[in-house]
C-alpha cells in the first residue's frame, strides 16, 4: 500500500483534481449551511412577530 504517498508521475494532476473537488463540494456545503441559517432566522423572526 503506497498509493499517492510515494512520489509518482503526474501526481500533481491527481492532487489538483481532488483539491478542486474538495473546494467545490466544500463551497456547496458552506452555501447550503448558510442558506439554512438564513431561512431559520427568517422563520424565527416571523414566528415571533406572529406570536406578538
Amino acid at each position, binding site marked *: 500500500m503506497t498509493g499517492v504517498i510515494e512520489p509518482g*508521475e*503526474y501526481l500533481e494532476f491527481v492532487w489538483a483534481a481532488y483539491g478542486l473537488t474538495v473546494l467545490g463540494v466544500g463551497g456547496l456545503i458552506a452555501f*447550503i449551511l448558510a442558506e439554512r441559517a438564513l*431561512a431559520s432566522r427568517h422563520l424565527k423572526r416571523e414566528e415571533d412577530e406572529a406570536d406578538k
Partner: protein
Amino acid sequence: MISYLANPKRFEAFARIAIPVCGGLALLLIAAGLWFGLLDSPPDRYQGDTIRIMYVHVPAAWLGLGLYLAMAVASFVYFIWRHNLADVAATALAPVGAVFAAICLVTGAIWGKPTWTVWWVWDARLTSMLIQFLLFLGYIALRAAIEDERLAARSAAILAMVGLVNLPIVRFSVEWWDGLLHQGATVFRADGPAIHGSQLLPLMIMVFGFTFLAGWMVLYRMRSAIMSRKAGNLQRIREAKA
C-alpha cells in the same frame, strides 16, 4: 413513493430521518473510497496514478446526469400536478447538479492533460457535458430572473424538461460518434465492466458516497426552502394585516 412524500408533513418526517442517514453514509463511504482510491488501489498499467482522478470524475459525471434527470422528473410532476413540493425539489437539485457537473468538467480537463496532452477538445462527450452544466445554470438563472414565483417555476420546469434531450446525447455520445478522444463506456457494458476489480471497488464506493452526499444536500436544501416559504407566507400575512 412520490405521492406519499408529496404530503409536506410526511416529507418532514422522512427528511428528519433521511438527512442524518445520508450524511453519515456519505462520510463513511467517501472516507473508505478515498482510502481505497488514493492508497490501496494500484496505479494503472497505462495511465499510472492519473487513473485515481477517475474516482472523483466518474461519480461527479454520473451525478451530473442523474441529478438532472431527477430535476426534470420533479419539474414534470410540478408542471402536470402543480405540486409545490416537486418545485421545491427541482429548485433544490439545480445548484447541486451544477456543482457536480462542474467538478466532472474540471477533473476531466485535469485528467485530459497528462492523458491526451490537451485540457479540452470539442468532442461530442465533452461538449454535451458542458451543455449539461449550462442547462443547470440556465435553470438557476431563469428562476432568479422572473419575479412572479409561479411563472418562474413553470418556465424553469419547461426548460428542465426540454433539456432532457441532452441526457442520451451525453450518455451515448461515445457510441454514436467515432474517433472521440474520450474513452468509451467501461463500467456499464454488455460484456461486463472493462476495469480491474481493484479499480472498480473504489469507484463504486465513491459513486455511492457521492450519491448519499448529493441526497443529503438536496434534502437539506428542500427543508431550508420549506422553512423559507413558510417564513415568506407569515411575512405576507403580517404585511397584509398591517
